[in-house]
């Protein structure tokens, strides 16, 4: 393998792919970056921790096509510290030579034959393909990923459910204390609903990669994984698509639609920013897993009390329809829900102090947050 390229292009590609390198790799070769130069003049840079695979490409002058696996962190550091300008890479027996300006580096490589087959090629004809705006997907991911569980004993809940149907994608996550459901429009889709569960950690990384790219994402659901093809908004020097792939979590996601209430008689509408600030302030006095209490009425009174620590109380303007009562929530979960919404005002719908409450944006229905109240003794 032998090629020349711009250091900035190489660095961009290396930093993108390096995000999939894990510190606790089970296979030694996964600590490496897989670099493949093609005769078409594109160089693919990829890494995987098996959960998450990230690959991107850059344009280069390829003198000799080939494949090499370089030690990830070291290579990343070397490229980052090179000056701008042209870099040339050439692989030899068990090593790779990096030359830039008057600098020469020779680094031992890892065994390319040991590298797992990467799931980055095109799918088979029966793969399901949908396309969407990358900013919209990033927003939707930010809304739901946080609600996934971190309890490893119920693996399906550590993931996010993807429900794909013609024209629509629904994402849902729950840790059994709250449930976040977000819907977005997509192009294409299967004849009937397809459901897969993807690990929340891989999706958090996908969300990060999508931020500010301003392009489109093509999502391909295959037999054992989902591949996201990212077209960046026509960046200079980039060799085209970046690819992110994730394995599924196997199992049955709980039927979340059954959990969503039909509608409640009591509805409180408040300013979202004020609610966030108030919950944050009053929440300081809700320690040791104690809740914040909300008295739903023409004004919203938020209060908290931790024995031996102290108490706090604040009143907010609100619009209210229904009977007045008190409902209590984990302040962090309430805050998460309100911050995932994007409207100026939010609506809290509740049945009584024990039934799960709904948090939504005012006049907006693409995101729903269901929150279990804390039972007051």
């Amino acid at each position, binding site marked *: 393998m032998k090629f020349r390229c711009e250091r900035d292009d190489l660095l961009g590609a290396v930093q993108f792919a390096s995000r999939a390198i894990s510190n606790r*790799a089970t296979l030694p070769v996964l*600590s490496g970056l897989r670099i493949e130069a093609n005769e078409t003049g594109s160089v693919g840079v990829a890494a995987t921790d098996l959960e998450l695979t990230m690959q991107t490409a850059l344009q280069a002058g390829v003198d000799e096509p080939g494949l090499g696996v370089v030690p990830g962190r070291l290579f990343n550091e070397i490229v980052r510290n090179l000056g701008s300008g042209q870099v040339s890479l050439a692989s030899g027996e068990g090593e790779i030579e990096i030359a830039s300006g008057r600098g020469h580096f020779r680094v031992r490589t890892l065994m390319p*034959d040991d590298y*797992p087959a990467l799931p980055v090629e095109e799918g088979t004809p029966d793969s399901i393909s949908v396309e969407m705006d990358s900013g919209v997907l990033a927003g939707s991911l930010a809304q739901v990923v946080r609600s996934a569980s971190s309890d*490893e004993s119920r*693996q399906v809940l550590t993931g996010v459910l993807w429900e794909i149907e013609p024209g629509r994608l629904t994402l849902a996550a729950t840790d059994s204390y709250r449930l976040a459901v977000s819907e977005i429009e997509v192009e294409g889709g299967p004849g009937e609903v397809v459901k897969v569960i993807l690990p929340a950690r891989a999706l958090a990384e996908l969300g990060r990669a999508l931020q500010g790219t301003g392009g489109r994402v093509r999502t391909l659901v295959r037999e*054992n*994984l989902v591949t996201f093809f990212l077209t960046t908004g026509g960046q200079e020097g980039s060799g085209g698509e970046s690819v992110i792939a994730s394995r599924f979590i196997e199992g049955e996601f709980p039927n979340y639609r059954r959990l969503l209430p039909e509608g409640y008689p009591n509805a409180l509408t408040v300013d979202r920013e004020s609610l966030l600030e108030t919950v944050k302030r009053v929440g300081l006095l809700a320690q040791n897993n104690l809740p914040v209490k909300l008295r739903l009425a023409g004004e919203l009174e938020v209060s908290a009390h931790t024995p031996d620590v102290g108490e706090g109380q604040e009143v907010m303007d609100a619009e209210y329809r229904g009977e007045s009562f008190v409902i209590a929530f984990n302040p962090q979960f309430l805050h998460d829900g309100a911050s995932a919404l994007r409207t100026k005002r939010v609506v809290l719908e509740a049945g009584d102090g024990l039934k799960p409450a709904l948090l939504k944006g005012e006049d907006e229905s693409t995101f729903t947050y269901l929150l279990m109240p804390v039972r007051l003794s």
Partner: protein
Amino acid sequence: MNQEIKSTTSSETTVWDVLHLSGSPHIPSSLKVPHAWLLLGPTGSGKRATALAMAAAFTCPDLPGVGCGVCSTCTRIISGRHPDLHLIAPEGQVISVDAIRVGVIPEAARSPFEGRRKVFVIEEAERMHPSAQNALLKTLEEPPEGTIIILVCDREDELLETVSSRCRVVHFQRVPCEAIQAILEAEAAETPVARLAARIADGDINRARAFALEPEAQSRHRSFAGVPARLTSSLEALDAAAEIVTEAATAVKGRSEAQKQEVVDLAVALGEGRGTASARASLAKRHKRELRRLENEVLNEALWTIGSWYRDVLAARRSAPDAIANLDLKADVVRWAAASEPDDGLLVAAIHRCAVTPGALARNANPSLAIEAALVDLARLAPPPPESPTMD
């Protein structure tokens, strides 16, 4: 999910050939594939190789259900470097509950990375802490789609009944002498070396392989086999014991050099930044365990070899030359057999003394003291017969 596995096809070479398992009585042939297997039998009876061959059979894209043994998938499975093969082994003395919680449960819940199945091989499964075994139960009982779990185990009695009862059990026997010889010859050992290795290995293919393929192992064996002839007094016994302990230390030192390179490789691969500490700590634990095991193996090998000498003398007295293990020293064996002392009873006592010492080593006895005590006893029980005066 259910699919048959086979060890042969009409013509092609298979992974079972590559791992020298063809014709093995332990191939789980033509069985519907259950999700959980327990390969049970003595050390060196080919359980691990069989587990890997099974993993290849389950995942090989070229010869599904058999394993071609040569494709990229099979090659990486055999060398333990395939993303859909998960090898779990003790770190230190036990397989902890965390090893199962981190290494098995989330991985079993994921779809396979390359193929349609993922295989978990739990080595030395009897070393699973009871809490680890309990953590594994649910996965054993209802493995997620495409998951196969193979437990490799020397001693079933340390497995919980709830674990073993959920597995299809395959019993392994010591490998017959001729089979070992054939395997070693296939692995390019010279016939006389292979024959000798098969004789002295006592059904343990690992030991036979070490003997046939490593010159250090052969020289070590010669020095161990020479020990009975040296045990003329307690003082000589102490000398011989010191040499055996030194042999073990030398082997450990060789391995520890190789380990240093591994540590360097890991550092190069990961860097030494934040978050790499646990990878380093786990490597260090594995190394320590390897060294302790290696030391024990060499000491056990010494005891076994010395014991085999006394067994050979008994065999020669009973005119059973086929049973003689130390073919290279046959003339000396015959000379001992012809002498009146040590008599059969003392030889049996000496063999017994050799057989009980490994147990003491396993219980973490001070290794040098245990070896010294054993050899001093042997010098008392079965000193060599006096050299007969030569004719010239």
